[in-house]
């Protein structure tokens, strides 16, 4: 069943924040749901939108745009939460919209050019060009704040 050409192919979920497109490995995304108001956490960093109830589990919501240092908007019903599995935990990633499921091979991945800001570069693993669009591949492992960082905040 395994074709040699398919080995490096990966399925990615593409999503939009503002005008920019990003993608993450589809295997790390558990589900996609609409925005529900989150309960804010005290003294949390700005990108922590709070926690919501995901079928009885308390799910922290990270505003991905704010986390990348992009502009943030007040979440509305049009926003989407991607429930992702990161390092043994579940987090909700708040994005503007999920746009596509794409299949790409690792050869298509281009290194992040030096023009990007340091903050963006720390999350972006590489770039894909697809139909003239630029899609950044996100490294989710760095999305969750380190405990120490949050304590300091």
């Amino acid at each position, binding site marked *: 069943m395994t074709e040699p050409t398919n080995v490096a192919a990966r399925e990615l979920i593409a999503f939009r924040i503002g005008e920019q497109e990003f993608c993450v490995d589809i295997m790390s995304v558990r589900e996609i749901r609409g925005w529900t108001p989150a*309960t804010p*956490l005290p003294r*949390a960093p700005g990108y922590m939108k709070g926690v919501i109830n995901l079928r009885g589990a308390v799910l922290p919501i990270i505003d991905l745009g704010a986390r990348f240092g992009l502009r943030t908007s007040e979440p509305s019903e049009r926003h989407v939460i991607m429930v992702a599995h990161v390092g043994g*935990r579940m987090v909700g990633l708040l994005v503007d919209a999920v746009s596509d499921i794409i299949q790409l091979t690792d050869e298509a991945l281009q290194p992040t050019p030096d023009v990007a800001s340091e903050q963006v570069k720390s999350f972006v693993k590489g770039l894909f060009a697809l139909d003239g669009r630029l899609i950044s591949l996100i490294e989710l492992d760095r999305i969750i704040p380190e405990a120490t960082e949050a304590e300091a905040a």
Partner: protein
Amino acid sequence: MSDAVDPFEAIKVVFFQECDELLGDLETGLLAIEQGSADNETVNAVFRAVHSVKGGAGAFGLDALVRFAHVFETLLDEIRSERKPCDDVTVKTLLRASDVLADHIAAARGQGAPVDEARSAGLVAELEALTHGEAVAAAAAEVEPAFTPVAATPIEDEDDFGFRPVAFNLADLGASAEPGAPAADAWRIVFHPHGRMYVNANETALLLRELSHLGEMTVELDASAVPDLDALDAEESYLSWTIDLTTDAGEAAIRDVFDFVETDCDLSIRPASAASEVAEETRAPADDFDIAALLARAQAEVAVAPQPAPEPAAPILPTTQSETAKIPDAQPQTPPIAQPMPQTPQTPSAPAAPAAVTIRVDLDRVDRLINVVGELVIQQAMLAQRVIESGLARSSGISVGLEDLELLTREIQDSVMAIRAQPVKSVFQRMPRLVREVGEMTGKRVRLVTAGEDTEVDKTVVERLAEPITHMLRNAIDHGLEGPEDRAAAGKPIEGTVRLAALHRSGRIVIEISDDGRGINRERVKGIAVSRGLIAEDAVLSDDEIDNLIFLPGFSTAETITDVSGRGVGMDVVRRSIQALGGRISISSTPGKGSTFTLSLPLTLAVLDGMVVTGADQTLVAPLTAIVESLTPRLQDIHYVGGHDPVIRFRDEFVPLIDVALGMGFREAPIAAGTGVAVVIETEAGQRAALLFDAIQGQRQVVIKSLETNYQQVGGVAAATILGDGRVALILDVDAIVASSRRRFVRHEATRSELKIAS
């Protein structure tokens, strides 16, 4: 539990788990015997418990444990077969023996201190003395018995030993290591396998090879029993072996080799010297029978016996001492000991009373199940809410179906919670031993009465109950009960009574610990509180308030610090651990009649009684146990320390007023003074503070959800919960809030002084 990788270790873990249960059975049974409510089955159960411990311990090579259990079991066997009466002294000894057995198990497990050898040896001596029915009173002190009793024991005593002509059989499987057996170097082993042994896929050659690892040996095959070919049954066993083995490994090691075949063979193991004496019985040639030489040799062996060996124990294999004792008479006229055909005594493995069928389940799985069911309940409630909102008729099929669903969900939730529920028995069972020991230490006679052992409560609560109960029982005996003379003088029975009871009351579990001692000496308590600066000298306190002073940190009434009740850490520690469980503790006391401590605890740590409040549009939950009172702050009651840190007057006392929503960053400006609701709370350390909220919504029982699972610990927040509307609400950590407001206050001070310097 963690390193269950090694299968042997995993089995060992199971063994120790079983040991815990067996010890519980043992204690229960012995207490029943003590109270005279025992029947034969109880005695059998007690015997079985010890026997099972011994059997398992043997398999794991826990020699010290096996040795002790064996002596213990021997006495129990005597009682079981009614050869020995079970009087008061015996029961007391048995109870103490069960304590030592528990010590041995703990030591073997690698928990706790090594066994007190002197105590163990002392009890072994006592048990043996009881077993042999002599010098019961004197035996207790006889920790180091000289060997003389054996040498001097005349042969007539044999009957008194209750000696049974049982050498080996099913029942005595594993009844191996006689503690006093000397380490003889030469052994004669006569081994005649039954056909059954081969059926069970055991092989003599392998056994012999195993045996040869122990030392030098010579093997002699006795094929005389082999019949002619036409009479030969191919599946029967006709051969036997006589093995002379020289080893320093001891009898137990030899017996270990035959461990798995012992029931399927005739086996006799004895020191070579003594073996020849019974040679005729065991089909071994006995040409060189020389009594004088034998006697000399046997005595020499016995003289170097490393262990105290008061008398031979009864139903075990005849060993050197018993042989030695007989030799002076030198009558090898079929000594009854070595009859190869054993009588069949009651098998210890007789079918037990039908026990409840249980399975062991990993706690994680249960917790996962409970979690999912919690989600189901919330989801069901939300769905019901939506259906009502949608305006469907109550009689519609959907509504009716939903109602059924609700009933089912509730039933599932109750059943699932019941899985985690455990009777408090497991904690109560540990207490009789404690009471005995504390009683001994303080020289008081104490009787522990327990009630409601079957009251069930969540496992986590059960586990955390042991410590406070232990502490309070110690206190009750040490401080509560009077000494025997004082009791006699007060006209009370010399034996003090401590009662430990558990019951369910309005959705909580209540534990009562009461004593019939002298009660709280209020004068003295107040005096101590004043001298320690805990209360003002002129404070007017009700009796109840004085009683509750003992819960203050740093209060200990014991005039002399005893081993029993700690040093200065007293009831405040108990109170703190109870509060950590979401519980409350109170005391009532009648001078001269005794005191009663009452603990009230939630049935589970998975739910919490909370006060639902709002602050800056956020719904928050404050744990009800911390709340003292709620009040509407009046403007004239609010004062500002240093101009900006608000305090509020509460019962003639100024307590800090903390705007929680502001402190948590939910709003920028403080709530307008004089509005909102203040909830006065008390931290576990006893500090009071008023938390200011916008409004109180009401009391509710909420399911505790961890924030750490997917996020991390958040300052000022103990956990989260999900309210009926499906939204997450934060449960406040009042201690942290009070502490952080204090820190902020300090920081304010710091910045102000820095500013001064800067300007």
